């Protein structure tokens, strides 16, 4: 009952937050149509074996999802700053419920962004077997775990007004290095990029083509970052509550 009503309130707040929806949902959707639309006949994007449409469908889904899950942290930062977190701490709401709801709602937003982009991709000619749609979605959802944790970590380290630029700049830079805008197949950026979890969000598109999930490196990078950032977030939370 508690969890249901709390989740309902958080969902309402997300849907009503127009600025957030523009950046997490509208922005990637428009970019997808603008970039992938004119090149929808290219079936092999820079020799990756992935079509342009599929590439941008995945990368823009990843882009919107990253913003969505990391914004969960921005919201925590704001609630901490205005003293709302203290109000909740003197209620029977479990801190675990507080965090799982924030992350859960972020994931709901992410899935919505993905669905919108999948529909757009389908319109532009992406046809995949059902199992591969699911496999790709599963990998992206998994690859978002480190970013959900990073959002919570930053939410405890940064003030609300620095969160916006940090998220915008951070996601923009990660997107560039991770090949969201064009495939990076060699060079320094490639060597750095593949150790970032965001790199593997886009690589999830390969499932659609070959049916193969990430190579070992992908799993190690995503799981490694997930563990490290979750521990970091837990530590930041404990330090923060002890200090208040």
């Amino acid at each position: 009952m508690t969890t249901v009503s709390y989740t309902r309130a958080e969902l309402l707040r997300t849907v009503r937050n127009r600025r957030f929806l523009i950046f997490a949902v509208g922005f990637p959707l428009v970019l997808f149509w603008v970039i992938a639309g004119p090149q929808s006949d290219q079936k092999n994007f820079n020799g990756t074996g992935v079509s342009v449409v599929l590439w941008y469908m995945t990368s823009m889904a990843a882009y919107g999802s990253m913003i969505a899950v990391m914004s969960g942290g921005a919201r925590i930062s704001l609630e901490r700053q205005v003293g709302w977190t203290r109000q909740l701490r003197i209620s029977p709401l479990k801190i675990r419920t507080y965090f799982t709801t924030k992350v859960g709602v972020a994931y709901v937003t992410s899935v919505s962004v993905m669905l919108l982009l999948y529909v757009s991709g389908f319109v532009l000619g992406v046809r995949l077997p059902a199992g591969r749609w699911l496999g790709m979605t599963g990998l992206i959802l998994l690859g978002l775990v480190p970013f959900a944790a990073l959002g919570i970590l930053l939410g405890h380290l940064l003030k609300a007004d620095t969160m916006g630029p940090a998220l915008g700049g951070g996601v923009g830079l990660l997107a560039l290095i991770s090949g969201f805008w064009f495939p990076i197949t060699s060079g320094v950026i490639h060597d750095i990029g593949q150790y970032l979890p965001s790199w593997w969000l886009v690589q999830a598109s390969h499932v659609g083509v070959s049916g193969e999930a990430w190579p070992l490196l992908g799993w190690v990078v995503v799981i490694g970052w997930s563990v490290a950032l979750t521990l970091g977030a837990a530590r930041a939370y404990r330090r923060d509550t002890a200090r208040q």
Partner: protein
Amino acid sequence: MIALDGLVKTYATSAGPIEAVRGVNVTIAPGETVALLGPNGAGKSTTIDMLLGLQRPDAGTVTLFDRTPEAAISAGMVGAMLQTGSLIEDLSVGELVGMMASLYPDPMDVDAVLDLTGIGKIAGQRTQKLSGGQTQRVRFAVALVSNPELLVLDEPTAALDVQGRRDFWDTMREFASRGKTIVFATHYLEEADAYADRIVLMAQGQVVADGPTTEIKAMAGSRTIRATLPGAEVGELGELPGVLAAERHGETVILSCSDSDRAIRELLDAYPEVRDLEIAGAGLEQAFLQLTAS
């Protein structure tokens, strides 16, 4: 029963450690309305934070209804309105209060609370569109809707106008009449006097007086007489009718008085040579300082 036992809290700051609370012992019986009175920096908010389990004391314990603060809060027995804090956005007033109600095992009826706190008319408004006074009422509604055994309020009327204050305390009286325990912090003697059964007076991190409201009011309402009076015995001055205590700084004497009119007549009779007379209302702040010094 609520017991604060030997609470100590020190903050580390760049200017060195600050002893915010230095050994506070208070026991509150169920159904009491207690004012935590003191000037800014007296340690009221820190004490309240420890009472609510928001801060861990360096030493001492807090017991709320035979439990730890965390256990009492998990059981939904505590409601509080903290000194600072705004509301989360993108919810209507009604939705916010309703959501908070759903977190507690035995909440009050949401509509009844909205009416009681005078925000029934703005129930449909978004929380980010409220005035300061309206926000304060909503925060009060959030504290009340939990229907707690213990209601804690940290300077609850700070953002309210005169009418708002009056409405607020009317609601509080109603709530207290249900046998609930209320602890509120304030630096207004008048508020403590009008609405508390008992005043716990704090200064510099300690309880300097604890008793029925009338008693504390008499202490805080005292006046002081300063005068130049070389050679008089402090002990004898302290014995004068109307004088509570006397002290000497060089040629100056300072008399804390329970009845300054009487004290000054007696002083002039006994010491015709007295010069540079000054009478001052002690004021709350000064009364606190006197009480801590003694």
